[in-house]
């Protein structure tokens, strides 16, 4: 085994991959949520649709999107590796265990939270991302240029109460996942310092509420305002 594979196969190597992919996905979420804020613009979806086109055609964004796919897949696969290792490390369980007295619920259930988010992701991608790439999306023309009217699709989708509910609930899970994941990634990378860690903790606490809340506000907003 080369030193690279040896490192990546070590527990810490696997954790490194989890942390790096996790942090990249946090960056992705930040971009994603900021772009999607255009939904609130109230311009009939023009800005949003133009943004959607930009995101699917710009080569730099393309590269980023591949990195995002890799991160998602890597994050999932390595979480499976780690979960299996962790399960094997304790073949016989305790009959009574009071984890709640020594750690946060979310930190102990990252796998469960992650799985729910993954299921959500499949629904989400199928509903919008796949539509945008390969689906039948009506077009709309701004200034003589043709755009796919993703805004219409989004509006249509979020008229369904169940889907709105699914999104909102999923965002709650995402919030919990991030509430641990954000600071945890820094800890795994070894970035723990008396001076800076409190700031990271605070940023994590704000992020894990703010970003999912913004995401969740979108379907709700659309549900109540759509025409």
């Amino acid at each position, binding site marked *: 085994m*080369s030193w690279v594979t040896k490192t990546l196969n*070590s*527990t810490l190597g696997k954790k490194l991959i989890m942390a790096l992919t996790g942090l990249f996905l946090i960056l992705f979420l930040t971009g994603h949520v900021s772009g999607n804020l255009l939904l609130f613009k109230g311009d009939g979806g023009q800005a949003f649709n133009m943004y959607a086109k930009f995101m699917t055609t710009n080569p730099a964004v393309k590269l980023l999107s591949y990195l995002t796919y890799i991160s998602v897949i890597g994050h999932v696969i390595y979480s499976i590796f780690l979960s299996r290792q962790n399960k094997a490390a*304790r073949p016989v369980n305790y009959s009574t265990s009071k984890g709640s007295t020594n750690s946060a619920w979310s930190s102990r259930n990252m796998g469960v939270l992650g799985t729910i988010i993954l299921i959500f992701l499949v629904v989400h991608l199928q509903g919008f991302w796949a539509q945008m790439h390969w689906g039948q999306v009506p077009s709309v023309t701004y200034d003589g240029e043709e755009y796919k009217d993703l805004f219409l699709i989004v509006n249509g989708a979020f008229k369904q109460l169940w889907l709105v509910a699914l999104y909102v609930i999923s965002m709650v899970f995402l919030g919990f996942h991030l509430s641990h994941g954000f600071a945890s990634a820094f800890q795994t*990378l070894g970035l723990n310092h008396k001076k800076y860690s409190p700031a990271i903790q605070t940023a994590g606490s704000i992020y894990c509420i703010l970003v999912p809340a913004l995401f969740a506000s979108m379907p709700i907003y659309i549900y109540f305002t759509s025409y």
Partner: protein
Amino acid sequence: MKLTLKIWRQKNAADKGGFATYTADQVSKDMSFLEMLDVLNDQLTEKGEDPVHFDHDCREGICGMCSLYINGKPHGPQQTTTCQLHMRSFSDGETITIEPWRAKAFPVVKDLVVNRSAFDRIIQAGGYVSVNTGGVPDANEIPIPKTIADLAMDAAQCIGCGACVAACKNASAMLFTSAKVSQLALLPQGQVERKTRAEKMVAQMDAEGFGACTNTGACEAECPKGISITNIARMNREYFSAVVSSENV
């Protein structure tokens, strides 16, 4: 006080084991938890039953030999070692569940006794400064800033009891391993072997079959010596920088 004890009994490593229930009456609040078990054992012996086996030695909270997973927590409800836990932490009529540490790397030997030699092997992999007896410089030739010496001492306090592994949902030995890596990484004496030490100790930790760290912080919360998980971050740092820069291929 009168208590119901649900204790894990297992004849040997090969036995499947299971819980047995005992009643302990006339328990005094001033007894230590282990003294309560001593009394139970004397009663069992007089009745002709095999006493409950558990590890313990110094009973001062420093040797790290006592263990026990009590009511869902390593070393019981207080952040201390089991030998320092007193019955005043329990109330009359309570049922107390006592289990051994559970980890693949800590196989049960008998009843509540487990084998923690994995920890010794982690230290043997590099938890030392390679100096022979004699031929060392005068102690004051190596000045060490007080803050650094204090941080090293914080990490060095580990008693190797294994509560971190027991508390961790993944049975991870990161806190134990990182405490030693940290101590020696902080001190000037540890610099020479710094990289190799981090690599070897982490490799041994993996080879023993411990789980990974999810950064839940349970280990730190349960550690009787309050070893901080900042040591884990430090070890990660040490390890990552070692693997990319050391001469060990």
